Each structure stands twice: as structure tokens, then as C-alpha cells.
């Protein structure tokens, strides 16, 4: 599980319902409604699938020609910066495959001692996909990673699959899929359902913020999350892709008939939360956890390691004006994010970059971009919990052993909360500083 395979399909899906549930999905001109009791929904893609392979498994046994060499993206990001031989082997297998199949998009890495020496290497797949212009409204994306849902931020259907499903897509360009309906939430409450985010607050969010939302949908069990494309989306895509796209939207009929539940949130009443060990839905107010002493802070991953996430942390450090009380690990998601930390100025700082602010606050220097310790990894992974310590992390899961040690205590939090906690050495509500 070193890298990810992504498959991207454009709309114009023709499909049949898998199992006996009735499924209705409206697309712009095409609307297929079936309630088949028999098996097989075959989604026929017009466009590309992108594999982001958690899966040398997929590639070692794939003995065919891929369905479309341009609709597959292979992105090494897990277990990159390690001495683990098997981890290296997995990237080698990917490379062999991509060369053999002439895959257009393979973000390779060979020189691990210096990530910048690898011109193609990007880093965390979900962030790289967005930055490289592979996410487009109206398309369908499958990836061999559960957080593929992040791309729903672009108004596309994006969800995770396992390696065998991915291999099936690689060879055939099709997949058996059970279509889903908009649904409700909790850790398993969104299982098999889609979550659509709408409203004035959502409209005010940047693309990266929308990606964070859609990213976490899978922690509610959701099949995918979606934010309708709008001006913000189009602006983001302007300099990233020239591939034509056609956004799709859920229409009013769908809203009235098909939504299983509608949740209204008044954001003005929301307060910073954390997810306490050992589950993403074990939520608590950050301010009520301020007696929890912590051992370290980790800011990174597809969820909380994007440019804006680091900007948020930098703002807190700036406002705090102090140095961190605990080791603070920073892992930019991609090469682009890393560059941004060293070049972009933080508003209100008098011209300082994120990296300068982090340095002055006493954080560890930003590490090589990858998934790093979000999911533990080999023992020599940067930021890994090798002892039973308490860590505030901007990652997405805190199950036992997630970041390494089985008895590690992980508090999931926003970059604001993570930075605030680093400054005090306890779980801290960021409003203390902002």
C-alpha cells in the first residue's frame, strides 16, 4: 500500500441497479432509472479512471492491457521515505507496470534522499489529483484509497475501492456499483449513502476546505461526499486543466424525493471540536479537553496537510507569539504545498512565510511530502508514534495503532486546534489565541 490508482470517468453513465434497491441518479441529459432485481450494474465510463494504487497487489497480477492509458493516474505517497525494502519494491512494481503499459501519469520517485530531486513526484494522492487538474465536475473517480471521497469537493462522484475492483477497472474500464442516495450521518450512519454539502457556508469555502469536508465523509461510512461546482470551483480549475467538463447538479426533484435526511447546521453555533481516542466520532469540545496533557502535535495528511491548513496553523502561531511546548511535526501533503510554505506570505505577518513562522515557533522543519505517519507505516516513518504517547493530529483516523503504537492516544483536530495545543502542551481551543 504505497501508492494509489485512480480511475476517472466522465458522466453519461449508463447503469443498472445492483441488488434489489432502486437507484435513481440524475445526470444532465441522461437519466437512467432502473430497479433491477438481478445482478450487475456496469458503469461505462466515457472518460478516465485514475488508479491511485494501494496496490502493487493490483499490478503484480495484472496481466492485460489497461483500458485507457490516459485515464489512469498512479501516485506513490504511502511508505515512501523509509528504508523498508518491501516499500521500495512496491514503487518498483508500479514503475515496471507504468512503463510496460505506457501509463501517462505516474508521479514517480527514485531518489528518496531528496524529494526535490524527483521532478515527477507529487506526494499525497488526493491533494496531488486536485493540484494537477485531475478532478473535474461531472466526472466519476475511483481510487484505491478510502479518502478518494475528497474529490467530491469538485462536484464529481468520487469514492474508494479495493485492489481487485481496481484491477477490474484497469482491464475493463467498468465496475459493478450499487448506486447511492443522499443520506444522513454518524460513524456508520452514512454507510452506502452520499452526503451532499450545500448552503451559504459551503459556498463560502475554498476548494481546499471543501476537500477536507469530503475527505472525512468516509469516516461516517459514506460512499461519497459532494459539493456542487460553482464559481470557486471553476476559478480553481482555470490554470489546472484544459480538459472540457460538464458539471452535474442534483435537481429540485431529487431534493424533495430522494434525500433521506436533511441536516441544517448553524455554523455560528459551532465550536472547535476534537475526536478523542479511539474513534473519529468520539467527539468533544476542544475547550473541555484542556486538561489533557499532550506529547506531540502532527500537522499533515490529505485531511490537514494542505496549504490552507498550514496557513491556519501559522496564523495561530503568529497570534500566540510563543514557542511550542511539544515536538511539532509538519508534513506538507505535496511538493506544491511544501513550496507554498516557503514562498507564500501569511496575511498579517508583515511578510513572513509559513516556514519562517514555524521556525520561530520552534516547530520541526517541514518534512518530505507524503502520507508519512498518518497511518503509521514502517517504524522509521517520520512522525510515527513508536511509544504510547498522546498526539494531537490533523489526520483522519485515530483507531488503536493508527499512527503506530497500539496504545498511542490520538486526538484528531483542525490545524487551528493542533497549533494552539502545541503552544500550550495541552489540548487547546484555538480561540484562546485568535
Amino acid at each position, binding site marked *: *500500500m*504505497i501508492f494509489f490508482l485512480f480511475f476517472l470517468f466522465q458522466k453519461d453513465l449508463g447503469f443498472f441497479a*445492483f*441488488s*434489489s434497491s432502486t437507484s435513481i441518479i440524475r445526470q444532465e441529459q441522461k437519466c437512467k432509472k432502473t430497479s433491477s432485481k*438481478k*445482478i*450487475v450494474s*456496469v458503469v*461505462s465510463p466515457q472518460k478516465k479512471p485514475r488508479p491511485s494504487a*494501494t*496496490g*502493487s*497487489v493490483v499490478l*503484480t*497480477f495484472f*496481466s*492485460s*492491457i*489497461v*483500458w*485507457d492509458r490516459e485515464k489512469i493516474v498512479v501516485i506513490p505517497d*504511502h*511508505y515512501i521515505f523509509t528504508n*523498508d525494502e*518491501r*516499500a521500495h*519494491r*512496491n514503487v518498483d*512494481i508500479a514503475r515496471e507496470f507504468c512503463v510496460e503499459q505506457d501509463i501517462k501519469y505516474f508521479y514517480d520517485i527514485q531518489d528518496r534522499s531528496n524529494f526535490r530531486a524527483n521532478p515527477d513526484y507529487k506526494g499525497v494522492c488526493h491533494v496531488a489529483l486536485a493540484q494537477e487538474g485531475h478532478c473535474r465536475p461531472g466526472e466519476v473517480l475511483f481510487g484505491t*484509497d*478510502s479518502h478518494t471521497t475528497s474529490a467530491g469537493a469538485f462536484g464529481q462522484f468520487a469514492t*474508494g*475501492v*479495493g*485492489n*481487485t*475492483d481496481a484491477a*477490474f477497472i484497469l*482491464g*475493463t*474500464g*467498468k465496475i*459493478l456499483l450499487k448506486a447511492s442516495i443522499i443520506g444522513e450521518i454518524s*460513524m*456508520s450512519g452514512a*454507510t*452506502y449513502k452520499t452526503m451532499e454539502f450545500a448552503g451559504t457556508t459551503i459556498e463560502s469555502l475554498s476548494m481546499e476546505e471543501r476537500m477536507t469536508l469530503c475527505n472525512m465523509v468516509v469516516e461516517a*461510512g459514506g460512499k461519497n461526499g459532494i459539493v456542487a461546482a460553482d464559481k470557486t470551483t471553476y476559478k480553481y480549475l482555470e490554470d489546472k486543466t484544459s480538459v472540457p467538463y460538464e458539471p452535474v447538479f442534483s435537481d429540485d426533484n431529487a431534493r424533495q424525493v430522494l434525500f433521506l435526511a436533511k441536516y441544517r447546521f448553524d455554523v455560528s453555533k459551532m465550536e472547535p471540536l476534537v475526536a478523542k481516542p479511539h474513534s473519529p466520532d468520539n467527539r468533544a469540545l476542544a475547550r473541555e479537553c484542556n486538561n489533557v496533557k499532550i506529547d506531540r502535535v502532527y500537522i499533515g495528511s490529505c485531511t490537514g496537510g494542505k496549504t490552507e491548513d498550514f496557513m491556519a496553523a501559522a496564523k495561530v502561531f503568529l497570534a500566540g507569539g510563543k514557542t511550542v511546548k511539544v515536538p511539532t511535526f509538519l508534513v506538507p501533503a505535496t511538493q506544491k504545498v511544501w513550496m507554498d510554505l516557503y514562498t507564500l506570505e501569511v496575511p498579517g505577518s508583515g511578510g513572513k512565510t509559513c516556514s519562517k513562522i514555524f521556525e520561530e515557533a520552534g516547530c520541526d522543519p517541514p518534512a518530505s511530502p507524503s502520507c508519512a505517519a498518518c*497511518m*503509521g*507505516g*514502517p517504524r522509521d516513518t517520520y512522525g510515527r508514534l513508536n511509544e504510547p504517547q498522546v498526539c494531537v493530529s490533523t489526520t483522519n*483516523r485515530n*483507531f*488503536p*495503532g*493508527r499512527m503506530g503504537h*497500539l*496504545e498511542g492516544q490520538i486526538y484528531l483536530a483542525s490545524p487551528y486546534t493542533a497549533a494552539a495545543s502545541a503552544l500550550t502542551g495541552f489540548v487547546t481551543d484555538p480561540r484562546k489565541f485568535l
Partner: protein
Amino acid sequence: MALFSAATSTATVLPRNLAFASSLSRSLLRSPRFLSFPTAPRNRASVSIQAPRAQAAASSSASFHGLCYVVGDNIDTDQIIPAEYLTLVPSKPDEYEKLGSYALIGLPASYATRFIDAGETKTKYSIVIAGDNFGCGSSREHAPVALGAAGVSAVVAESYARIFFRNSVATGEVYPLESERRICEECHTGDVVTIELGESRLINHTTGKEYQLKPIGDAGPVIEAGGIFAYARKTGMIPSR
């Protein structure tokens, strides 16, 4: 339109024993069920995927018999197979076995009876009984593969996370069965159980209780065939070897 032609396989294809016999007679060397690929010479002709031939619903007379291992709710894939073992590639038989030896090693210490005894590579529990949301978290396909490699025939859970369910079916490694109601509190690790697949029934011989399961439905024929590729070939969706 689909392109699906074959080149020389880079993996060793081993026939998989699809016996549904008692776990006690499981063959010692197991290979991934989903490993079966066309070996016809490479040819670039495009082949369209056809709708599968109509097929009668599978009425399997399979049954599984053995000891059960009971876990609670929200057993995530990090607990089923921690990330550090994911560099093992299941298509290699020795690594497949190794992967199996780590199944459920991520369970916290509160599970005093471990799933696999120290020094062993296989489990003595061929059936896992679980609560809600089994297999949540990461999409790693290694999760059902590790369970299958360890010797599990079926999981009976109150509910599943979707990617884990899909992966179980696509690989054909374990049957992801659902109970009609919560049974993880009425069964104990070490109970002797039988699952009658065709009747969707679980019998706990130790307690004497019987439980109704939800029928495996459309997923049944796919798992029975040996996973999605075998199934697709069998039903004519993709060309046979």
C-alpha cells in the same frame, strides 16, 4: 467498450481450493482466490463487456463449521491488519501466508484471547462474529485477504462498512454475512458454531441457540465463483481464458 487482453502473467497462478468443508480440513497452503487471469496471447482487439447471461440465484448448500471468535463494534481495518504489514504482496504465496499470520493483530490488549496463538500462522477460529460497522476505516483489501489467509471462512456481523464488504466479495476471500439482530453479545470466543449458507442460519452448538442471518444474495455467486474476475468470466462478462 473495453480492452481486455492478456499478456504473460507476472504472478504465479495457483488453483485455489474452494472446498467449503469444515475448517479443520482446510488445506495448509492457500493462495488468493482472486488470482486467476487470462493467459491467452496478447492481442489488442477491443472486446466489449456483455451483460452477464441470466443466472439462477445461487443456492449454495455450503456450510461452515468451527470455532468462532467474537469482536465488538467498529472493528476497523487498522485493527484487522495494521498498516505496517501492507507491504506484503498477497499474490506471492509465502507473503499471503505471512499476511494471514497478522490477521486481527491490531486488536487492543482488552482482547485477552488472541485471534492467532503465539508462534502460529493460522487461526483456530474459522468464523468471526462481530457487532456493527465491521471493517470500517481504510479501504485496504488486505483486510479480508488477511482474514481469508488466516483461515476464516465467514464473518457474521451486524453490519459492514461498504468498502470492506465490497473487498470481501471482489476477492471472494470471506463470506460477509449479516445477522438479523445483534449476536456478538450472546456468543463467546471458542463457541462451536455452524453456518448453513443456503438456509442463512447460524447455529451455536455451545449455547444451543440458533440465529437467522440475512441471505448473502447477489454477492453469493460472486464469492462462490472465487471473486469478481472469476465471476465475470463465468458469466461471460469478460472473455474466458
